[in-house]
């Protein structure tokens, strides 16, 4: 269950948050929603792909962290996250409530005795909480910017489905479905004025980051292979 309340200096002065990445705190996700501001940081580790929200059918951008359900190949329980940790994982257990920050008091991350404090003795936010607030300053406008970027891709018909079909060394096979990427033929066929427009909006760079990030698929597959061989 969730119990989300607006964060309050007085009421939550003793609340602590276990901030480290861990499967039991919800970092065990194979596809994590991301915003365009993160693309450059993500592209050096993960494939950046599009998927559809099961409730609304709307497209969203995400980083692919694994192949199987609840599989995050970058998560190491001892050492934490072995790569850039996307904002949407880093923000947990906090939420945006209008302009304010809210917290899910029922999250397994929330504790009274271990983890990061939120406020110091004077009631000022700790460095940890300031980091969370910074994440939200990126996330909130980032979601809106990402939405506009995706709308532009769709209106220019630059999105196509991609099926990742891999055979692993243990003889098993994974076929991912419901993922989308940039249609490079359609991109090349764009008229000049549309290309300039994409460039001026900063979208062309995002598009090429998405294309380049596809090269992370075989890297991700190698991680999976190593894990399968360890097991």
């Amino acid at each position, binding site marked *: 269950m969730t119990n989300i309340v607006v964060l309050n200096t007085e009421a939550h002065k003793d609340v602590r948050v276990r901030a480290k990445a861990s499967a039991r705190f919800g970092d065990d996700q194979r596809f994590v929603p991301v915003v365009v501001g993160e693309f450059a940081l993500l592209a050096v580790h993960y494939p950046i792909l599009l998927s559809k929200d*099961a*409730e*609304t*059918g*709307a497209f969203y951008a995400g980083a692919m962290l694994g192949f199987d359900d609840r599989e995050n190949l970058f998560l190491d329980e001892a050492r934490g996250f072995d790569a850039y940790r996307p904002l949407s994982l880093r923000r947990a257990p906090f939420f945006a409530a209008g302009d304010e920050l809210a917290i899910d008091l029922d999250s397994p991350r929330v504790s009274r005795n271990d983890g990061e404090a939120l406020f110091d003795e004077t009631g000022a936010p700790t460095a940890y909480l300031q980091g969370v607030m910074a994440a939200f300053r990126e996330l909130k406008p980032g979601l809106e910017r990402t939405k506009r970027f995706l709308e532009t891709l*769709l209106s220019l018909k630059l999105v*196509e*489905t991609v099926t990742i079909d891999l055979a692993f060394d243990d003889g098993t096979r994974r076929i991912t479905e419901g993922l989308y990427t940039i249609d490079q033929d359609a991109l090349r066929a764009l008229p000049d004025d549309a290309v300039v427009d994409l460039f001026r909006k900063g979208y062309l760079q995002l598009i090429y980051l998405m294309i380049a990030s596809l090269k992370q698929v075989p890297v991700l597959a190698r991680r999976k292979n190593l894990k399968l061989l360890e097991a």
Partner: protein
Amino acid sequence: MTRPVEQLVIVGGGTAGWLTAGVIAARHQGRIKAGKVSVTLVESPNVPIIGVGEGTWPTLRTTLEKMGVSETAFFRECDVAFKQGAKFARWTTGRDDDFYYHPLMLPQGFAQVNLVPHWLGGMQDRSFCDAVCPQGELCEEGLAPKTITTPEYQAVANYAYHLDAGKFAPFLTRHCTEKLGVRHVQADVTGVNLAATGDIASIDTRQAGKIEGDLFVDCTGFSSLLLGGALGVPFRDCGDILFCDRALAVQVPYDTADAAMASHTISTAQSSGWIWDIGLPTRRGTGHVYSSRHTTDEQAEEELARYVGPAIKDLSVRKITIRSGHRETFWKNNCVAVGLAAGFLEPLEASAIVLIELSARLIAEQMPVCREVMDIIAARFNETTSYRWGRIIDFLKLHYVLTRRTDTAFWRDNLDPDTIPDRLKTLLHLWKYQSPWCFDEFDRLEEVFPAASYQYVLYGMGFRTEVTPEDNAATEALARRHITENVAATQRLRTQLPRNRDLIRKIHEYGMQPI
């Protein structure tokens, strides 16, 4: 010197006129943009649209997609709902528990194996439809044929639409005029001028003067102003085969905005006809189609009232006189008729709109380049279209001749051999010994009703084809595999698919994605 066909004039709006305009204009966009061809639709601002055709076939998905229509916009603006087939109630025995489905999905593995003899040979613990395809169960459970993540026009389970015809024509008008370059002239036709050759040279209109054309499409509805009127092509009545000649239509509101909505057409047999029931998001369209030779208007209205319930006393019931049949020929000289101007049949299998689409596509694809070759195209069009009308008449009659009802003269008269077309008689004779399938005679590229449709109706209504175990031996394993596969597919779709109304609400709220 040849006479090129450059000016296309469609006379009459409504579903037929605008669909035809859209199909032709979309196919010839290049020539329209280059100014080489024009498509003009002349529509009376005073003649109301008949607009009872609210059931469609899955062909409409392709037709609209090719026209460049957004399926989301279509759902939102035309009060559209999904149709996954038709449920026929009380057609066989007339009892309360008597029903079968004619779904839109093909039987499992239809191209590989005919499941009919296997089902007849010992799988009759389930209905034919349930044994070979998931769609009957999806309909019974009120599930939608896709999910919100399925792209526009794509299906998880094959589907067509139920729509509000009164909103469909204006929706197509906007699309055709704004996106496809169709000229819209609002004017009443006052005369048709023939050339010495017998071709239509022009039409006179009250508001827009004389309008000339190289090819005229008659979409003027029952009046058939051009083909029937000016060119004198007679009407061939088929009331001796299909008896229904009256309809009472009434729109029924739902009890609550969230009431369950069927994703199939329900057709319930009555004493001398049948009642249609088409679920739209905001209301149900229902109507009683009946034979005035077998019952009275009063009794027909009473049966409709019994079906609709007490709510009917506050609703307005519209009476429509119908005449089953079609023009003896459909394309004469430089005039071709589409829609009600070509003919009408009772809406038992929603054949009206699909025939418009098929006719429009035939005109669009075979558009005569010049007058000199038009008669060749016309002859082909007539051959194909006559074939289609004949097939549809046979298929509709099939529903009546398989009945075991003898409770009224209507049902008994339907079994009179003199009322059954010869081709249907021959087929029924054949089917006693071998069931219809791919390699049957339904081999046309664009068959209105394929062999699968005949299977669903025949074996839904308990028709017996003789089978022997030896005949089945060769395909036994393959058939069993498909039957098992169908059980798995049914199970999977039942967990995967949302409630019909929930999906429609989401389409209105979020829209469907183009890919």
